[in-house]
């Protein structure tokens, strides 16, 4: 029986932990690895030979990526029991850390954890990130991993699982915010026997790294969520579509799938029941448009990733023409907790329409760059100034949410609660969770131009408004930014925004004008200042033209 096996593993893990007085955790997620945390891990592992009762392990992301490599020490005995965190640790520091175990912490490396960055967060999706070794299924099981799946397949009917998700009020975390329960219900109602579950891990939004961290730090959680979804909607095959730029995430997923199959929580006869669920990995190859669900499906089928008109929606006609459920990494990562603790518990967090928590990646001009998880409804001010620690030069200008499909929100609106509706009302979107903070050195026109250049190169070329429109909008923005444009150019730009937004085939084109529209809405003066005839003092275009004409011989 699976439940006994789980208990056995949990006991083994707990005994192993109990044997050690100190546990040293080194972040081995991509952020810290880029600053050589693997060397720190090796040095610590080699060093503990001198010190008994100490266990060193690699764990996932601890959040504060800008201060990496991060090391956390948990002690049960000694003068300083409890936990200590170290920042900017180098391999040379290993011996000092080991020497200090059970004594006073190494002061020069210590990172204060009694700060809002750590205390104001509510962790559901990230609860195991930085706690468990992502490459060992046993550690995931010891923290109640796969319990949700076990309960679902052994004690609940598929409909009961869906009811639980509906009750939780969970909405799609990929950006759109479509109610997850409703999506699951639709796919479940479709005729079988073949259905698919797809996990969208094509995190293309530049400046967002939430999904990557979850996959690298707690891959089993996503697999469990997918398996629960498979059971609920009646699918036996699952695909994870991961960006090719994330080799570490792919590697950890492969390990996780292998371990889960061996233990029998995935593969044929999940947890000893009649339910089969196999997960396959599909690698993206660098195309932002593949984050769009129909393009993603085309890509899994081995084709060019171009979207197609909807309806029919993938729920009806998806992968190889079969009903398909597509959810984002973070959405799936919420599912195990909902099954374990109940939909009502989840619905108790967040706001009326946006339930639960959201993971954000803070980047740009901000003190604490990194990954955070907060309840829905927290204000931007709390996120940026309290948790994020504010802007280094003190002059925060705006925050960009939602990447190339989102918009810039000026500092005056920072008291807005973060939920799907409020951000939309401000002309931005929740998006997948990237938050780029900008100080007064950033020109908003340049930011708009940057995103338009992104959309222009990433446009798949299938529909004309997006393929041609983005090029023209980029040319116009370039003209404005380099001070060669006139008022009528701005008018043309605004018309084009409207046209591209309303006539493009997929989300990429429909939202491409958003960064322009939102910067125009809040920072119109920056555009006007750059126009040849933008000054309010009446030097109109015609006047300048007349002068030029007169000047000619």
């Amino acid at each position, binding site marked *: 029986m699976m439940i006994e096996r789980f208990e056995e593993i949990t006991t083994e893990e707990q005994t192993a932990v109990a044997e050690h007085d100190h546990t040293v955790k080194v972040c081995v997620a991509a952020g810290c690895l880029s600053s050589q945390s693997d060397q720190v891990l090796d040095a610590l592992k080699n060093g503990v030979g001198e010190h008994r009762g100490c266990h060193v392990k690699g764990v996932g992301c601890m959040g504060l*990526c800008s201060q990496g490599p991060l090391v956390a020490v948990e002690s049960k005995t000694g003068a300083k029991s409890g936990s200590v965190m170290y920042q900017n640790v180098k391999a040379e520091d290993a011996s000092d850390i080991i020497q200090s175990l059970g004594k006073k912490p190494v002061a020069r490396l210590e990172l204060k954890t009694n700060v809002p960055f750590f205390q104001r967060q509510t962790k559901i999706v990230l609860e195991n990130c930085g706690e468990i070794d992502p490459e060992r299924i046993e550690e995931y099981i010891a923290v109640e991993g796969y319990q949700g799946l076990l309960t679902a397949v052994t004690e609940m009917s598929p409909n009961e699982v869906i009811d639980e998700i509906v009750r939780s009020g969970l909405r799609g975390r990929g950006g759109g915010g479509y109610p997850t329960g409703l999506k699951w219900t639709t796919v479940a109602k479709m005729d079988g026997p073949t259905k698919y579950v797809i996990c969208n891990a094509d995190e*293309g939004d*530049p400046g967002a790294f939430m999904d990557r961290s979850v996959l690298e730090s707690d891959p089993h959680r996503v697999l469990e969520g997918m398996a629960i979804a498979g059971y609920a909607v009646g699918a036996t095959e699952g695909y994870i579509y991961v960006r090719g730029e994330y080799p570490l995430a792919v590697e950890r997923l492969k390990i996780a799938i292998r371990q889960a199959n061996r233990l029998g929580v995935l593969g044929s006869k999940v947890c000893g029941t009649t339910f089969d669920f196999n997960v396959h990995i599909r690698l993206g190859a660098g195309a932002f448009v593949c984050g769009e669900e129909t393009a993603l499906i085309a890509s*899994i089928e081995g084709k060019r990733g171009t979207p197609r008109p909807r309806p029919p929606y993938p729920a009806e006609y998806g992968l190889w023409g079969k009903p398909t459920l597509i959810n984002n990494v973070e959405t799936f990562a919420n599912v195990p907790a909902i099954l374990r603790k109940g939909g009502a518990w989840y619905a108790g967090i967040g706001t009326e329409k946006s339930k639960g928590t959201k993971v954000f990646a803070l980047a*740009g001009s901000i003190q604490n*760059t990194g990954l955070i998880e907060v309840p829905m409804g927290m204000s931007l001010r709390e996120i940026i100034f309290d948790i994020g620690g504010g802007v280094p030069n003190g002059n925060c200008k705006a925050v960009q949410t939602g990447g190339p499909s989102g918009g810039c929100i000026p500092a005056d609106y920072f008291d807005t609660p973060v939920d799907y509706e409020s951000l939309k009302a401000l002309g931005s979107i929740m998006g997948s969770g990237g938050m780029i903070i900008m100080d007064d050195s950033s020109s908003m026109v340049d930011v708009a131009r940057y995103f338009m250049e992104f959309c222009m190169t990433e446009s798949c070329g299938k529909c004309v408004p997006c393929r041609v429109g983005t090029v023209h909008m980029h040319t116009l923005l370039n003209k404005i930014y380099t001070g060669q444009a006139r008022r009528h150019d701005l008018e043309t730009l605004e018309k084009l925004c409207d046209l591209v937004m309303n006539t493009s085939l997929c989300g990429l084109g429909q939202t491409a004008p958003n960064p322009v529209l939102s910067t125009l809405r809040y920072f119109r003066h920056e555009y006007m200042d750059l126009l040849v005839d933008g000054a309010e003092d009446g030097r109109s275009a015609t006047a300048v033209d007349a002068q030029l004409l007169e000047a000619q011989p």
Partner: protein
Amino acid sequence: MVSNTRKLEPPSDDKRWRIVVGTMRRNGFARHSLIETLHTVQESFGFLDEESLHYVAESLRVPLSQVYGVSTFYHLFSLKPAGKHTCVTCTGTACYIKGAPQLLAAIADKHGINPEETTEDGNLSLLTARCVGSCGLGPVAVVDGEVVGKLTPDELLARLQEVMDHHDD
């Protein structure tokens, strides 16, 4: 999902073809494994040449036009060989704000190459990526597979010189 058991002989007896055949076999020579297969070719040979496109097309029974279409659609696939050393500069939003354009300008200035170009001596290729996910370390570049963060233009140039000199020894 038509599978194909017919096995074609690889274009040469280069051992790397075995890895490519392995990927196709694992996927039952299914047509939908095209992208996976191209990934393997690129990993094994560094880029996709005409010969490999022909071979993959025939093995998977996919029209050559589709193979070409797919390999030009996705940014990660390259139809040209890369230089001895590669520098991938991240141009994600966070890196852009923190100075990625200056890094690119410095490389263009010193080595005379723009993104997606290789120096004439084939020594260095400059590529760009839309976010490598290390936003906390911006601006970031990946030099010969190793991520280097919090770069200034001078640091990046020095780093590039270092890897190029090291190789020439």
